[in-house]
């Protein structure tokens, strides 16, 4: 097990390094510069700015400097918001996005599982159709449409919740709902499909024959196996939801880190592009590791260290 983790860790670092290198050179090969705006600054000032952010050095030197700083977890200054560092920005934005993402995941997971399980148990019944229509709606309505509808109905027409911003629990309700519908629908459909498959298996019949209660059959025998595909998607889903979503955060004016992903590219704010990419990749890689571990827990037949076992 230890050897397995060690191997995984090394692989993770290599992956991360490849992503960093790829992003770094790709981003510099895109035309445009952080100082190109409609309004022009004179050449002397532009040169000063470039020198300040070391953009006048050869690319390979910049790359080396970036890696050196990164080892010390220094992601550098933002070019557009010169009084802030990328560490500051992520340090402030991530907790907010994480909070929103965590609640969203909980809501999506619980409601998705319930919908999926119920639909599978009442296969081809009215409840199944109802649950699946909810799921189809959830998948096909983009979250920004959902967000706008929720705001218009539950904040403007019926003033139950505040329209936007992020300062109290009731401010969180609408963004969580808007953000959770998509993942909920995905989870519901996956759960239903794999539950249906599991429920037709022989060991379920055996369990029924043994006289186990339906609740026990569903939770102990069926759901556990049916969860595997859900866990698989959950890894990448969690990584993207926890690191913030540009559209929802923009609509609800949530101070998360979602906007940095998009704004940094539009502004050619190189350190921020790198910072967000590195951060997101690290979280994604970590989530995938968690998923692999979860497989082992859910299904003892899956061995994480197969090779060693042989």
């Amino acid at each position, binding site marked *: 097990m230890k050897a397995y983790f060690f191997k995984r860790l090394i692989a993770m670092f290599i992956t991360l390094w490849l992503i960093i290198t790829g992003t770094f050179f790709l981003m510099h090969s895109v035309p445009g510069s952080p100082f190109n705006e409609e309004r022009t*600054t004179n050449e002397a000032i532009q040169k000063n700015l470039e020198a300040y952010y070391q953009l006048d050095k050869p690319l390979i030197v910049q790359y080396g400097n970036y890696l050196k700083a990164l080892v010390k977890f220094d992601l550098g200054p933002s070019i557009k918001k010169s009084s802030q560092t990328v560490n500051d920005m992520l340090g402030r934005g991530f907790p907010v996005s994480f909070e929103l993402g965590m609640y969203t995941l909980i809501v999506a997971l619980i409601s998705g599982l319930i919908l999926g399980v119920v639909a599978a148990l009442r296969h081809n019944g009215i409840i199944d159709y109802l649950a699946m229509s909810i799921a189809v709606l959830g998948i096909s309505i983009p979250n920004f449409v959902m967000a706008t509808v929720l705001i218009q109905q539950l904040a403007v027409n019926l003033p139950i919740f505040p329209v936007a911003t992020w300062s109290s629990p009731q401010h969180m309700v609408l963004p969580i709902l808007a953000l959770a519908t998509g993942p909920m629908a995905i989870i519901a459909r996956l759960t239903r499909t794999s539950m249906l498959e599991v429920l037709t298996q022989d060991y379920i019949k055996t369990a029924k024959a043994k006289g186990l209660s339906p609740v026990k059959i569903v939770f*102990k025998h069926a759901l556990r196996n049916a969860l595997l595909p859900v866990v698989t998607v959950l890894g990448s889903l969690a990584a993207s939801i926890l690191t913030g979503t540009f559209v929802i955060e923009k609509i609800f*004016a949530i101070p998360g880190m979602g906007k940095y992903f998009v704004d940094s590219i539009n502004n050619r704010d190189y350190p921020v592009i790198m910072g967000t990419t590195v951060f997101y990749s690290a979280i994604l890689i970590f989530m995938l590791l968690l998923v692999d571990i979860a497989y082992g827990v859910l299904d003892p037949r899956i061995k994480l260290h197969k090779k060693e076992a042989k």
Partner: protein
Amino acid sequence: MKKLTVLLVAVMMMFALAACTANKDAGSEKKDDGKGKSEEKKVEKVLNLNNGQEPTSFDPPIGFDAVSWNSLNNLMEGLTRLDETHQPKEATAEKWDVSADGKTYTFHIRDNAKWSNGDDVTADDFVFAWKRLLDPNTSSPAAFLAYFIEGGEAYNTGAGSADDVKVKAVDKKTFEVTLISPQAYFLSVISNPCFFPINEKVAKENPKWFAEANTFVANGPYKLAEWNHDSDFTMVKNDKYWDTKNVKIDKVHWAMVDDPTTEYQMYTTGELDTSDVPSEMAEKLFKDGDVKVEDQAGEYFYRFNVTKAPFQNENIRKAFALAVDQKQMVELVTKNQEKPAYGFVSYGFKDPEGNDFREKSGDLIKTDVAKAKELLKKGMEEEKYTKLPEVTLTYSTSDQHKKIAEALQQMFKENLGVDVKLANMESSVFATDQKALKFQFSRSSFLADYADPINFLENFITGSPMNRTGWSNKEFDQLIKDAKLEKDEKKRYEMMYKAEKILLDAAPIVPIHFYNQVYLQNKNVTGIVRHPVGYLELKGADKK
């Protein structure tokens, strides 16, 4: 496996409970909120505004944009401040003397001009701030505004030193500055945030004093009380401000809502006191008469590239320019009540006789389809074209630009019988390529940095980074140069009238429309001033 079941049930119950309590909270606190607000109103006047985004920087010479300076303009104050009629008035300086040659200004700073930490605002604070603005190491994008000062340009471009910049503190409260030439608009330029003083003592102790609310020292009508980065910030009345008795608002809360629809929805629920007009709602809101419209000194226009065929030919350029119907453009396409533009300098600048520059200069290039056709024919003969080289119109990707580009395409087809191709690209790439003269015909805009027609016209002198047309005219260059040195206002305006005529006669540009500021505002709020050139003014704001 029982454990798993129990766990699942427990989580579900927890969630159900949490949801219930959240809902209950939502109901009761909302009520409290409403009550709190009505009680507050009697004691405290709170203005709820939207800044859109996190300010780029509150360091005066750095945050060269509306998201930084609209608020900074109310936290700090320069020697002058623009009044409701957009004229510079005494602010930190209570009076000034101008030398006979019009080049040296001596400002007398108020005795009661104080920083929010109690320090005096001194002449040294201005010397420090202005030299810092010009310091090449500050890399201020606004530094060019201080090139009027003798020695300023040389220092900023690395050719001179800080000591050669002609700004000095005569004594603690007397500040003297020498300009390269008499500038009628100098007093208006220095109301700009990049000319704000900086508390030298504070800045030396903490070079990042502007980055957080607790270290920020203000000298304006308000001071910074709280700043949650990327979320919101709050300004409160500054009791150390020299004119604090005329500041009626106690607190200004700035949200950072970047989505125009959300902003509008917050305005409708009363969470914000002003809002922009979201484009999809514009028609209805204009019809309802809720929208306020104010001029903004700037223009939306198109640039020809005179180094690329077929636009090296003046007649072909003019043919295209005359084929554009600006009136139709603002009435049917942009629908934002902009004024159509038939010249380059915008409305709002008065010459010494009191005439508006735009009105007196008149319509220099106005839609005339018959003449456009004739000029196109003439131009093609001059260039010996049997067929017009293919023309591509390029714009930076955005819905608004696209609408206008498509309308132009239609107008060229209908009025000239020319098929123009459209191309668009992301704005950062677009800007680089436009500067490098890679386009034939491309979308442009200009917003004035200071309130004088010369600011518009100087863009098109040979070699200016804002020229971007390849157009060059010796007479025009000379007129701009002379106008900048001219002390007699009447003569100066004559030169500028002439220069604008030369520019539009050669037509390296096609004016489309002047910019305006459209917004919605709570009927209880008064006294917020939006200058055509300048930043939001809240000093005289009030709320019933």
